[in-house]
Every structure is written in C-alpha cells, then in structure tokens.
C-alpha cells in the first residue's frame, strides 16, 4: 500500500457532471459501477481510503491494524465556506461513522517477524468469506467479465466442530460419507438415504418425493420427522445449510428455516461439490484475498470509462435550496461535482436535520437520509498462527453449531483457515477468520474467543519454554496464536432513495444475499437497463488474438 499522499495535489476532476457518483469501493459499489458503466452511464467512483474495497478490502497487517484502531473523521473542505457559493445550493456536511467498532488487537509472539512481513499479508476485513462453486457470484463474475482478473483455488476441507470431539469432516458427498471414520454405519445409511431422497426430489424427471405439506414446515421438524439423529441434524442445518440461529430454540430463532429453503441450501452445496475439476470441495477462495473481487469489478468499470479517484473524501452534499433534491457533492479538495444519482458508502451519513440551521430548506427529506437501517451486528475475529488447525490441511472451513461450545451458545460460529498457498500470508503461517451474529459486542467477542480457544492456544506469557498443551482426546497439538484481532461490524441494509446506500458485509460465508441486494438496488436506480447485458457492442474493442481470459490449466 502506497503511503497516503496530499489528496489536493491531484488535478481537478474533469468533467464535473456525471450520471452517477459513487462514494466507497466496497463490493456492492464496485459491482454497480461495473454494471452501470456497461450500459453507458458516466460514473465517478471515489474512495477516501488509499486502497480499494472499503470494508471488503484485503490489507497488509500494518494497514489492517491502522484501519481497525484509528478511524478517521472527515476533513473540512479545502475552500470551506460558511455559506454556499451559489444562491440556489445548500451545503450539508457529511459525517463519517466507522463500521468497525470495539476493535482490539494483540500481538502475542514473533512481533519482529510479523512486522517485517506485513506486506506479505492480504487479510480480509469482511472474513470469513468464500464462494461456493455453484454460487451466483461465479455466474456474475462470468457474466460481467470480471472473472478474467481473478484466480481461485479450492478450499481443501470442510469441518464441523463437535463438543468433546473436536473437528469432524462434513460428509458432503457419497464418497465422503463412505470414507468418514466418525460416523457409525447406521448413521451413514441414514445420511445416504436422506441425500438420495433429496436428489430424487430435485430430479426434474421424477415426481416430487417430498409432500407439499412437509415443504412448508420448519426444516428442523422435517429432519426430526425423518428420524435423523441429532449429530446428522446438526451437520445438515449448520455445516451444510449454514444457518445462524439455534433451530431448536424458539426464543432466539424468530424465523425458522422452512423445509423447501433447506432443500435449496442442500442443493446449492451439493451442486458445488465437484463442479470444478481442481476444487476438492464446495468452496473457492480468490488468490490474494477477497479484496481482489471489488478490484476486479472496478477494473471492469474503468475499462468502460468510469473515472477512479482514491484518497479523496467527499465531505458535503449539495442540495437544491428550494426543492431539497440532491444536486452534487463537494470533495475534500474543495471541488464541487454534480450527478443525477449518488450512492454513498453506508459509513457516511448526515447529522439529524434538527441540528442543522437550514432556514426554510425542506429538511424532512434529510430526515430519511440521516436514518440507517441497522439490522444487527457481526462479530469478527482474525488469528495468525504458525501451524494448521488440522495437520496437512492448508485451507479449510469450520462451523461451530449452536451449543457446541457452551450451553447458552445460541448462534453458529463460522471459521475459515487460509494458508500461504493462497498468497494471503507468509510461508509457514496461516490466517484463521471467525465470525458470528450477535446483539452486542461483549456477547460477540465471548463467542469468538470460545471458538478460538477450542482450536488454538495462546503462548503462555513469561514462559516461552512451556510446551503447548495437548488435547486430551487426540494427538493434535493446538496451533499457537501469534496475533489476533476482534471487532464488531454493524449490519446495515441497502437503501434506495434519491441518495442510495449499499449493504455492509453480512454474516454469511458467501455473497449471495449481498449481490441480491446489489442487483435489486441497480434495478431500482435504472429500471430500464439490463444488469450486465450479454452482447458486447461493436464499439467495444476486444483483443483480437486473445479472448481476454487468463486460462490456467
């Protein structure tokens, strides 16, 4: 990451009128930039950071620590005027509220090594995150052309954490069930029969095997009806369908998953296994980290004419004095720019209109803008370790079902370990990401630390000679944590108004919900335009002797 430079050394941005101005280069903003550029909109895409990705970025260790621990407020405009330059414009200053709060980081060991190798890390801010092979993200990457900038590798294994038993493989295929050493023969037969039933149900050539009334009941009830034992139920609900809340706890789980939706989750998971020849499991991960995805879409937008500016905060909105409608933005450099539509990163908001002295400006429209649709929180943890949580496995996903760590645990915890073969950390180290939904920071961190302690060990301070403790029920030695971080991200939904905003990273492992919201926002903004139309126009130059795809065989 280059050192931040004086943002005002840039030439003035030319032109000054755009169809769309986007503030923030997170995944949703980048996808919309690419989609709108593809249909000919003129776009200015800015980010106050020196890097792409916003809260979906992958950062060096040093930059990550800075980002989490020293959030910045917006500077004043260079040519700040107490009143607007023009008679018909009202200037409304923006407020920056960081999405990551309650951050704590700790270095336990090898601080010199970590410091020297900071740039070899590409640590995801929004992790754990991966793509299913049958994900709609894959289809979007192909359709948009962004796939040509990315390379993926498969995640080696998927595990589920079992209380008092540690990590068990997720049996996600017939072969995996056959090979599994922890399932009893009876359990294997039950699971085989269940998968066969689901397969027959989904087979278009056959009559649906599951009655319609069963499709409407909670999935957990359907599994009980099938007389599946608790262990298999847990694997299906939390490790394959990846549900967040305890389906057996009516108090906490407001909306139980229906059987038909559970079947859909199983279908996506199993159609992911084996889709790509070189992917051993259901999941893919981009080489160099998840931050490559927003960059790929931004490159796509730039190729179609979108103008990009980094290190340039937007400090104010320019509003029409009479109608109260949006006109443009004021940059930190003092420049005013205008557009028909604006998309703001969800970390930007405005003060309550009551605190502004706007005279007879119609402030009720600003009221909506100052309110953000917060749906909850995601607690995230990151650990750097010296060995894998599973010997000989470089990358793997782990799910801790509800109550697998302690009786009051009401949410699943998702974890993802990535090794250096994916170019996200120095050789000989691993990154473990953890996340869970929570209602407050203390609850979230408690959950994450319990999950961390189940698999990892901290160096005993002051006693570097001590031998790491060995788990009583297996010969695996717990990896030692060199560094860790915990932080809370607010869950904010996307919003379409005369000024729109995009969603924050959610608690899911994949991007489907985020991309659904993004496509919906695009369709609301441009109802007559297609989302990434397939045919390239004759004016779109393509390289004649290469199809543009970097094919690695």
């Amino acid at each position: 990451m280059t050192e931040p430079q004086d943002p005002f050394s840039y030439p003035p941005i030319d032109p000054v009128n755009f169809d769309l101005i986007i503030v923030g280069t997170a995944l949703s903003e980048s996808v919309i930039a690419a989609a709108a550029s593809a249909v000919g909109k003129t776009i200015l895409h800015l980010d106050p950071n020196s890097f792409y990705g916003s809260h979906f970025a992958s950062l060096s260790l040093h930059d990550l620590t800075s980002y989490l621990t020293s959030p910045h407020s917006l500077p004043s405009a260079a040519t700040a005027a107490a009143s607007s330059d023009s008679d018909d414009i009202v200037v409304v200053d923006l407020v920056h509220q960081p999405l990551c709060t309650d951050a704590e980081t700790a270095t336990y060991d090898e601080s010199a090594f970590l410091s020297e190798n900071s740039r070899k890390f590409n640590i995801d801010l929004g992790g754990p995150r991966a793509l299913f092979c049958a994900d709609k993200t894959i289809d979007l990457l192909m359709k948009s052309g962004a796939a040509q900038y990315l390379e993926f590798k498969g995640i080696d294994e998927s595990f589920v954490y079992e209380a008092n038993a540690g990590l068990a493989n997720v049996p996600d295929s017939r072969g995996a069930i056959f090979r599994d050493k922890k399932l009893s023969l009876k359990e294997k037969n039950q699971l085989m029969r269940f998968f066969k039933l689901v397969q027959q149900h989904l087979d278009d050539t056959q009559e649906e095997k599951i009655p319609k009334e069963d499709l409407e009941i909670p999935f957990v009830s359907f599994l009980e009806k099938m007389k599946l034992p608790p262990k298999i139920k847990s694997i299906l609900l939390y490790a394959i369908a990846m549900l967040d809340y305890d389906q057996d706890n009516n108090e906490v789980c407001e909306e139980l998953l229906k059987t038909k939706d559970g079947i859909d989750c199983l279908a996506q998971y199993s159609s992911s296994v084996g889709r790509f020849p070189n992917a051993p499991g259901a999941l893919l991960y981009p080489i160099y980290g998840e931050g490559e995805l927003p960059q790929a879409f931004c490159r796509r937008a730039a190729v179609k004419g979108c103008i990009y500016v980094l290190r340039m905060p937007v400090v104010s909105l320019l509003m029409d004095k009479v109608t109260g409608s949006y006109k443009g933005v004021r940059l930190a450099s003092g420049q005013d720019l205008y557009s028909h539509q604006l998309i703001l990163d969800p970390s930007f908001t405005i003060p309550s209109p009551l605190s502004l002295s706007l005279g007879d400006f119609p402030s009720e429209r600003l009221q909506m803008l100052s309110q953000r649709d917060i749906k909850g929180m995601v607690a995230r943890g990151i650990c750097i370790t010296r060995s894998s949580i599973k010997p000989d496995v470089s990358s793997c996903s782990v799910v801790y079902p509800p109550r697998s760590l302690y009786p009051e645990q009401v949410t699943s915890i998702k974890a993802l370990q990535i090794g250096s073969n994916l170019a996200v950390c120095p050789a000989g180290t691993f990154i473990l990401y953890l996340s869970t939904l929570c209602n407050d920071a203390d609850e979230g961190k408690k959950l994450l630390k319990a999950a961390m302690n189940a698999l990892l060990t901290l160096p005993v301070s002051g006693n570097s000679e001590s031998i790491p403790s060995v788990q009583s029920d297996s010969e695996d030695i717990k990896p030692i944590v060199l560094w860790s971080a915990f932080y809370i991200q607010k869950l904010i939904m996307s919003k379409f108004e005369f000024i729109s905003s995009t969603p924050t990273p959610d608690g899911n492992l994949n991007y489907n919900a985020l991309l659904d919201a993004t496509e919906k926002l695009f369709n609301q903004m441009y109802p007559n335009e297609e989302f990434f139309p397939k045919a390239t126009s004759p004016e779109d130059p393509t390289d004649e002797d290469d199809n543009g795809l970097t094919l690695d065989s």
Partner: protein
Amino acid sequence: MVQWQGDADEGIDYMFKIVMVGDSGVGKSQLLNRFVKNEFHMKSKPTIGVEFLTRTVVMDHKLVKAQIWDTAGQERYQAITTAYYRGATCALLAYDITKQQTFDHVEKWLDELRIHTDKNILVMLVGNKSDLSSLRAVPTEVARDFAQQEGLFFLETSALDSSNVESAFIGLLSQVYRTVSRKLILVDGHESNWDKVNLELEGTKIKVPSQEPECQNAKKRFNCCSIL
C-alpha cells in the same frame, strides 16, 4: 503471468505479463497500440476499452507470448488497483520527454512497482515523444544516468513515428526470456499453479500435465461422485 507450457499446448512456450505504468498522457496506450497493432491515433483521450493486448514473438525458436496490460485510465487520479500488478514479470515505465513533471514522477512509479510486484521485476524506462525534440524538457543523459543508477533499461521512443517502440518491448521481453531460460521464476514464491480453479472449465475434464508430481496428483484427485 509466467506460464510454462509444453509445446503441445497451443504452441506457446512462454507467456509473460507486462504492465504499463507512468503518468496519464505520456503515451502508454499509443506505445501499446503501435507495438501490437502498428496503429497511432492523433487525438487520444484517457484510456478506455483496452484491457490488455497480446503479441507473440519468436526467440531462440521458442514462441513467447507477451500479455501487455494497460491501465484503463486508473492512473489519472492514483487509482491503479493492486490487482493490476499481480503476476507481472516486467514493467514498461513511460514518461513524456516534453514534460519534466512526468519524469519527476518516475520515482513514485518505481516505489509503486516495488511495493506491488516481485522484487526481481524487470523495468524498461521509456522516454516517449522523441519526435517532439524541439520541445524537449528532459535531457537524454539525465534520464540515462537515472536509469543506470536505478538498474533500469532505458530507451527513448516515439509512438508517432515508431522510433524504438519495437526495441523497447522486444528488448524487455528478451531480458525476461533470458532470465527465465536460465531458471524458472517462482511466481510469488509458489512453485506450482496446477491446483488453480479455472472458472471456464465447468464439468470439463482436463488432462493433468505429466510433469506434475504424482503424489500430489493422487492426493488432490477429487471424488467424482456427487450426491445430488
């Protein structure tokens, strides 16, 4: 991307990724168009539409494919993605001999390259627009001394009249080829790319190259049976 392929695969022996860097307006896209398409456009605006272009040349009876990436205009406000530099083995760093500022910024571009690329990346410093000698602002000797001091190759070019364009690109490729033919560069330190997932190859069986280690082959072979 350093991609070693057997002769049987499409006939290409080596493929190298070259990135173009330098200030906006110095002529990077014109240099690229001249080298690959032998075209020059008098009125040019910030780069739109060009992803990368490729050209294949023969060296020592080997087919060497150059994949040359353009900036898509993202350098104008210092917004080149870090992803742009992934896997680049060489860079062509251009400035405009009629604009001192573009030469002054070469140091900044070298810093950017050192941060985001392999430390062994080869850099050709190119002073473009040599046809405008009456407007020269950067003396040749100053630039040559700087290049020598920084360990860069150096040429002055004109995309307009074609001077030295071929030499700049072929010279850079020759140096990379020479380096690679002595030893294979480990891409970002990773010895093998055999397990990368190609999104295009859905459901297609690909032949695993025979030189791959057999034990890795056996270990990673995925199970063909899927439940659903």
